[in-house]
């Protein structure tokens, strides 16, 4: 809270800094709010506090040396980012991937998506003042982290995929653990519905709050659950199926109004759909190799460029790589979904109550380090 009062005409406008160290911004985000009494008249997100230069780092190292960076941009969906990067490089270098590795990647990615949504679920309700769901969600998330730890050796920064496969094979124990998790979640969805989704207080808190109209979403390039909450069934897994997503039967949940409640419901149902995908992938998990033999240690793809989009937990994410034939990319650009999802707040926040700002900010599920990267 600095810069106390500005006088604009006859109006008294009060400037308030939300962040950069606000507990509900999940990362270092600062939003400059201009207030008129209890109402927000202007919102101006300031980004860049967590800039580490990941894109530049990518251009200064070999392709495989960028693998650890991928899980550090969006630390909640590290597996998805890791997956997307190997997809891009494989496309660039024309590497084939064994079927088994594809299935393992899909299972790991979907588990990661659930863990990311669960964390959002917990922290969003914490932002709104409910502590209990947070503890339950973290308990469930812990199961996923254990499963992913068992295959990759790390809880968040996986660095698990390799060009042409994955670094470790999965065993029966992994399959059992995953099955047990799916079974456990069936009962938990019911609990969560009783505890949160059906809760009248929660519904009143989020219904018609922070409506993102379809037009606005298009203007700002909003993707992911936030766009689907407006009623558009756009999901990269369906529109441009990568890996083996075209073989699975799953729905794309959509909302209708684009308010915070719709966004909540869409994410909630997405977790259930991810469970369905995992179930099918486990069913059809083929035997065989997990790595393509003869991928050179020092990979130098032919000259050219590649753009690969994938669906991370927050929306359409993409890698754009340009190769000049050397062992490292000439240009490495990453399209992150949170950037559009954050900037739409420029137009969504004005006119709302300052008390709703947190309810809106939380509902779009931002991860700031991926914007700053």
């Amino acid at each position, binding site marked *: 809270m600095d810069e106390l009062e500005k006088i604009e005409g006859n109006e008294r406008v009060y400037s308030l800094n939300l962040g950069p160290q606000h507990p509900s911004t999940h990362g270092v985000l600062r939003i400059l709010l201009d207030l008129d009494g209890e109402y927000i008249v202007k919102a101006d997100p300031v980004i860049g506090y967590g800039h580490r230069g990941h894109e530049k780092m990518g251009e200064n*190292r*070999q392709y*495989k*040396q*960028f*693998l*650890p*960076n991928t899980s*550090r941009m969006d630390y909640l969906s590290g597996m998805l980012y890791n997956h997307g990067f190997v997809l891009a490089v494989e496309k660039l270098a024309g590497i084939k991937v064994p079927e088994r590795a594809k299935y393992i990647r899909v299972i790991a990615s979907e588990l990661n998506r659930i863990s990311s949504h669960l964390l959002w679920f917990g922290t969003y309700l914490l932002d709104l003042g409910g502590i*209990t769901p947070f503890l*339950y969600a973290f*308990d469930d998330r*812990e199961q996923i982290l*254990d499963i992913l*730890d*068992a*295959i*990759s*050796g*790390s809880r968040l*920064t996986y*660095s698990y995929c390799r060009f042409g496969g994955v*670094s*470790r094979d999965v065993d029966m124990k992994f399959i059992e653990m995953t099955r047990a998790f799916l079974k456990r979640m069936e009962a938990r969805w019911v*609990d969560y519905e*009783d*505890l*949160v989704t*059906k*809760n*009248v*207080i929660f519904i*009143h808190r989020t219904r018609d709050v922070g409506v993102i109209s379809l037009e606005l979403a298009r203007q700002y390039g909003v993707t992911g659950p936030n766009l689907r909450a407006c009623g558009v069934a756009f999901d990269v897994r369906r529109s441009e199926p990568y890996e083996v997503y075209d073989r699975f039967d799953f729905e794309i949940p959509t909302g209708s109004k684009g308010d915070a409640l719709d966004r909540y419901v869409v994410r909630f149902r997405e977790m259930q759909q991810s469970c369905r995908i995992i179930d099918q992938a486990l069913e059809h998990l083929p035997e065989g190799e997990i790595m393509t033999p003869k991928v050179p*240690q020092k990979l130098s793809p032919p000259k050219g460029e590649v753009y690969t989009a994938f669906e991370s937990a927050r929306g359409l994410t993409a890698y754009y790589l340009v190769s000049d034939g050397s062992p490292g990319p000439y240009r490495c650009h990453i399209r992150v979904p949170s950037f559009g999802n954050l900037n739409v707040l420029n137009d969504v926040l004005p006119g709302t109550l300052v008390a709703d700002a947190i309810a809106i900010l939380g509902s779009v599920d931002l991860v700031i380090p991926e914007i700053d990267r």
Partner: protein
Amino acid sequence: MGYFKDIFNGGLSLIEGMGVTARRLFRPLVTVQYPRKKIPLSSAYRGHIELKIFGESGTHKCIVCLNCEKTCPSGVIRVQGEKLKEKGPKTLTSYVIDFSRCSLCGLCVEICPTSTLKYSREYELVGETWADCKIDLLARLARQVEEMEAEKKTQGIAA
């Protein structure tokens, strides 16, 4: 009227939520009292790297090819070797890692031609200065060999 109905409905859904919490009261605890109780590490756990001890020679197999040093994205590894024998590879004289910068990516473990690197199972690491994060793997290896021998001896006495 709607106002009171809202309050009533809100109260009802609160009670329903309480029901979920009440059911949870009778489930086993999920937390662990950490320093007193520990969870087993996963078999894939990636700690900082260390040199493997091979049974037949009782030591590592590093040939000082510097592949690990060159492939490390963060410049963590410093390997030094000397040419002691006329023929054959150099002998390792120092292997130091700066763990504060390691991203645990595993590239060094994968690239080593003699597979002499592995992940340790160390996770209780504390350091107060930067120097504390520097780990001398050769010294660590010597310590481990000593411990192994001591263990063998005690076992021999017991048998």
